């Protein structure tokens, strides 16, 4: 019983807007603190890697960006499933909000991976299994965004994207595993010696900071995008109009 009341509360855009508003300052402060603190720690305080030199400091943004981009897709798929199964409008708004954030983080992961590869591997781009998988994830995000824009009808766009995102989420493990297998066939021997094993435990602590900071940043940005979408979609409701144009009566809290 209480699960269902919680669920209905969460499904109400108005309740979500007010609840997320209270959450925002904490998310913003904590994520910026962890991201900036972790970056300073990783840039200035940690010793250089004995094989990669200072270029390894890029992993403090590369690894969080790729991990969160992956998690963002799965979050989007869960939101899509909730929207399709329970017809929850809020889930569609969350799904729409995640796509540009996830695509940006995937782009960031690709770019930092390429820039890290130049001093480390001597080339900007390697068709390494992990980089290729991130590239495919980027394509999946672009496809979802393209499909969303193609529809004039918002509800149809949300439902079609939900189907596509779920199909993509079912495929992602297959794609990752296939690319892994494909890479094992063609693996050049020269780059095998660089792996995570060379990273010293003390170097992992700033990574934990930037990783959790990136997750919090994602949550923060997701809430901001969803809140803007709520205002846009609920523009005909009284509470949104009171919120934007000033309260004309006491009833709104």
């Amino acid at each position: 019983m209480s699960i269902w009341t919680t669920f209905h509360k969460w499904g109400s855009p108005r309740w979500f807007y007010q609840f997320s508003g209270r959450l925002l300052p904490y998310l913003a402060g904590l994520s910026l603190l962890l991201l900036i603190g972790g970056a300073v720690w990783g840039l200035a305080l940690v010793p250089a890697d004995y094989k990669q030199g200072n270029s390894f400091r890029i992993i403090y943004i590369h690894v969080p960006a790729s991990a969160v981009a992956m998690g963002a897709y799965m979050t989007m798929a869960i939101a899509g499933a909730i929207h399709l199964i329970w017809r929850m409008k809020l889930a569609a708004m969350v799904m729409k909000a995640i796509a540009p954030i996830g695509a940006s983080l995937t782009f960031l992961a690709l770019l930092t991976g390429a820039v890290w590869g130049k001093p480390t591997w001597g080339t900007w781009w390697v068709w390494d299994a992990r980089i290729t998988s991130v590239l495919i994830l980027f394509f999946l995000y672009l496809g979802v965004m393209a499909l969303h824009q193609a529809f004039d009808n918002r509800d149809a766009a949300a439902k079609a994207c939900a189907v596509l995102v779920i199909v993509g989420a079912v495929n992602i493990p297959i794609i990752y595993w296939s690319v892994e297998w494909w890479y094992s066939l063609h693996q050049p021997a020269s780059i095998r010696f660089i792996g995570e094993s060379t990273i010293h435990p003390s170097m992992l602590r700033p990574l934990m900071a930037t990783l959790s900071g990136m997750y919090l940043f994602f949550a923060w940005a997701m809430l901001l995008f969803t809140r803007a979408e709520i205002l846009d979609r609920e523009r005909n409701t009284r509470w949104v109009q009171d919120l934007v144009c000033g309260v004309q009566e006491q009833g709104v809290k």
Partner: protein
Amino acid sequence: MASAGVSSLVVAVLRRDLSAAARRGSEWSNPLVFFIMVCALFPLGIGPQPERLAELAPGILWVVALLASLLASDSVFRGDYDDATLEQMLLSHQPLYPQVIAKTIAHWLLSGLPLSLLSPLLGVLLHLPMAGMGALMASLALGSAVLSFIGAIGAALTVGLRKGGLLLSLIILPLYIPVLIFGSSAVKAAVEAGPYLPQLAMLGVFFLLALALAPLAICGALRISVDQ
């Protein structure tokens, strides 16, 4: 009654789609012409040396066959959507699931199967060694069935949109990647006289997964496209 009804429904949809395609002709011949033309572009683009072409042939043949199948997918539901047959399909009390499977199999019979039958000819043009021909045909026949099912999801999602073609390729191409990897790898392994049955077995697994899961997504997508 129910099982006989479903199988006769599948046969009826198959027969209708195939006879409609036979009357028009372009539906099954256009992907083949595309396949031939694009394969002929590669020697012009990378040079006529037989050794180099032979080395690239498995990849080229698979990528071009994949694109041909992709371009053909746009039409799986297009005609039925335009003349409102699709709406009738959704409104009728007949189950949608078997009809969708029948339509996708019809699409494969009209695009994937002819592509795989024609592929040895293009293999010869691209100097693919004889040892690779069997694997090429088998992997294309099996792999294009998976491509048809994935492509039908995209076609069902975009059938209500006016400019579906390019959008369809954007949303579907990333999902084709596992099929491409195992398909071209089977041909390459056969050319190098290695074992290629494992790759074909993987394509078989993909086919069974697609057969079981893709129609669910296709049915959902069709309802969305027709309802909007």
